[in-house]
């Protein structure tokens, strides 16, 4: 089980690889689309990479609920 900080750091790595986001810009209150400029297709790639990294299933109908980095951290923390 990873801490919230560890999950944020892991998501930061994924966001850098998938969408070229600077890890320093990634924090829980940031919106994927508004603040980090992650488009809908890159979001899918982030989700797929997060499933592998954290050993969690994130179904298609959940993806739209993950608006901020914090939303994703909470989902991963409670489902991993």
């Amino acid at each position: 089980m990873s801490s919230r900080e560890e999950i944020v750091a892991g998501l930061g790595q994924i966001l850098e690889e998938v969408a070229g986001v600077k890890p320093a810009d990634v924090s829980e209150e940031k919106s994927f689309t508004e603040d980090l400029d992650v488009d809908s297709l890159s979001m899918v790639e982030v989700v797929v990479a997060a499933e592998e990294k954290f050993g969690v299933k994130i179904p298609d109908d959940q993806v739209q609920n993950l608006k901020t980095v914090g939303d994703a951290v909470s989902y991963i923390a409670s489902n991993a």
Partner: protein
Amino acid sequence: MTGSRVLSLGHYQPSRVVTNDDLAQIVDTNDAWIRDRVGIVERRIAAPDETVADMASAAAEKALAGSGLSAADIDLVAVATCSSVDRCPNVATRVAAFLGIEAPAAMDLNTACSGFSYALATADHAIRAGAARNAIVVGAEKLSDVTDWTDRSTCIIFGDGAGAAVVTATAEGEAPGIGPVVWGSAPDKKDTIRIEGWQPYIVQEGQAVFRWATTAIAPVALEACARAGVDPSEIAAFVAHQANARIIDGIAKRLQLSQAVIAKDIVESGNTSAASIPLALSKLVERREVPSGAPVLLMGFGGGLTYAGQVIRCP
């Protein structure tokens, strides 16, 4: 057992070019957004009176002309399409009539965007079974007929066109030129791409389809290579369904194709569903980007959701 090989290819695209800027006139979109999300710069759109059968016939005529065979030699016509408006007669008999092929087995086949790979496999199987000797296999679509031109999420994606291949039995002792097909479907995701009802429009759940295509298709392509006995590093060209440049890049990355030309006809043709693989392949061969005899990986995937892939020897 006798196998089969692709003898020649041909393609046809309508003359009308529609650019991203043209689309920005009718829906709220722009060139940069379309290039970034799907990788399309322009697409061809058929004339109002130009049919799927017209485009299929034009592509088939070119493939037949390049084959060295005559119409009388063809005993199977298989057309992959999901956008032909008429139910009967089918497109295949119209193509046969246009080319003057007198009595071929003639069938249409609909597995949406994976259709060409399904039809190519079906022709290969018919030849292996002794049910045919020389086949014309076509992928042809007029998606503009089933496009909602007020929906900016779909109307930017699709185009019209056709591609065709002449497939013939290999000589005794000659290695097969069409490898074993790996095909299947994902019925649990059947509603993610729909062209339903009377006078329908294409509707799709883009994110769900993107996720499936970027995760489920690479393993199928690798299996197609394995079943053909070809290592991915030996593949000379990768011709995937031209769905979205980012999907093509995503699949190609997972395949680790170290020397393959990656077909990106989507840039100038858009997504033409069942027509996209033969269209892209025919253009690659016409531009001499793939040596004759080299292994080419074809990978169809799309509505259904369905998929089919195989390795062929480049004509």
